[in-house]
């Protein structure tokens, strides 16, 4: 075995899926090949880190019990638990000049994206308290949404650096639209507090906001 080991051979070896004869040959090659020893070590690290990735998608513990229960009833899945980040050494493949050009392009792209998002409208503040009292059941539900949404927003803010600029732009655009919908429908509900359809429309918009934030959280590795 004079040539370097293939990735398939390395995978099989790491998985223990080779027979004794192949194993002996691979180990003999490792003993004299620093390149393949390095590849094997990197492969073992990757597989170990893959093993640390979540086995299941479980509901976020951030959510208040009531909201989490509602979602569990209505949904099949939600947000992953904390996920490990694989850090794999990346080999340099580009010439220095090409790297500079890539950097220049990336910088231009980032500038363009960030410039675009910085122009995005600011989401309206939550609506003021209504003049007419809203039903207790609605207010209770709304408070739960506020708490769950605030918790998710704090979590996302902490991991904002891990979100791609494009993802942030999509998120902010859609949050703005949802917040506007909440403000409009809630203002209407304030004028007609007994209207169950309006109440459901407002809560549905809150649910959309909650789920959008959860989707954004899923996109954070």
């Amino acid at each position, binding site marked *: 075995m004079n040539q370097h080991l*293939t*990735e*398939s051979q390395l*995978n*099989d070896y*790491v*998985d223990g899926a080779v027979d004794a004869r192949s194993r002996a040959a691979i180990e003999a090659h490792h003993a004299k090949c620093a390149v393949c020893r390095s590849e094997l070590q*990197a*492969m073992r690290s990757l*597989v170990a880190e*893959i*093993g640390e*990735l979540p*086995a299941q*998608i479980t509901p976020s513990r951030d959510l208040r019990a009531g909201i989490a229960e509602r979602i569990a009833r209505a*949904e*099949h*899945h939600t947000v992953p638990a904390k996920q490990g*980040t*694989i850090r*794999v050494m*990346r*080999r340099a*493949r*580009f010439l220095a000049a*090409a790297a500079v*050009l*890539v950097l*220049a*392009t*990336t910088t*231009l*792209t980032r500038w363009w994206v960030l410039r675009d998002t910085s122009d995005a409208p600011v989401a309206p503040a939550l609506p003021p308290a209504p003049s007419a009292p809203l039903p207790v059941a609605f207010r209770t539900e709304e408070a739960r949404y506020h708490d769950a949404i605030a918790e998710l927003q704090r979590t996302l803010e902490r991991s904002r650096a891990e979100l*791609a600029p*494009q*993802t942030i732009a*999509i*998120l902010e*655009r*859609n949050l703005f*639209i949802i917040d506007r*919908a909440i403000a*409009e*429908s809630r203002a*209407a509900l304030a004028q*007609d507090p007994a*209207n169950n*359809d*309006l109440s*459901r*429309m407002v809560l*549905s*918009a809150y649910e*959309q906001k909650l*789920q*959008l934030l959860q*989707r954004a959280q*899923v*996109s954070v*590795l």
Partner: protein
Amino acid sequence: MSRRLIGPAVAGLLIALSAGSLTAQTMRKVEYRAALDGRGNLRIWNMSGSIRVTGWDKDSVAVSGAVPADQRFGCGGGAAGVKCAVDLAARYDGIEPGSTLMFMVPRRIQLWVKSSSADILVNNFEGDLEAYSVSGRIRVEGRVQTLAVETMAGAVDVPASSVTLRAKTAGGPISITGDVEDAQVRSVTGNIAISHSRVQRGSFESISGNTIWRGTVLPGAGLEFGSHSGTIELRLSPATGGDIAVSTFAGSVKSEFGPATFVRARDLKGRELQVALPGTTDARITIRNFKGSTLLLKQ
């Protein structure tokens, strides 16, 4: 060359050269094979490029594809479950060429796929599937048991039939043409289209995206449509029977069933508009549209 043209020319040259260096990046082939129980699970992470998963009748998983030379690909696990990932350290989002991976899997496994900009295509699959992307397109074919797809901006295309379907996007459009017993579909600004799909129970909601239903409604089916400002359009076949209840706060309703009707929210004065469908089925359809248009049309 005048001075005014030098700046744009240099910028264009930079972009062209860097794009050339990216597309010229070396790809290397990858392969992996392992035993996987027919009811086992497979988890796939590939942020950029494409992921194609096809079900087969063997108790094993086979992976082949091409990965950028500076990225790692690896799989691990046992017969009960396998995880495969391409270098997760980087944030690609379409900037790099990404990895092209093809998986052959036992058709009834539990499958979980995560991407950022990578397109996800699953076909000939009959197990449980969860698929996530940020901007990558997701398409699912086959007869899936439970299907959950989520994306921020990618398009979702589901010709697959499934027992349960959960599809959610922010801005991506959702198209459903397969039969579904229980569907829950949500978008914020993305459009939702359900075409000739047999849905027993369904909830379709958007904030500003439009929702279009085309086709018949199953006997005894219960469907709910909701939007804040999007148009909700139901094009129903003549065989559809039952009731439609529409509530709107500031929108309008146009109906071709019974006496042709066009009403604005102020005319309803907070009441629901009840529309009786002439067919023999007994479907129950509820529509809540805050300020968008609702169209009830004959197909």
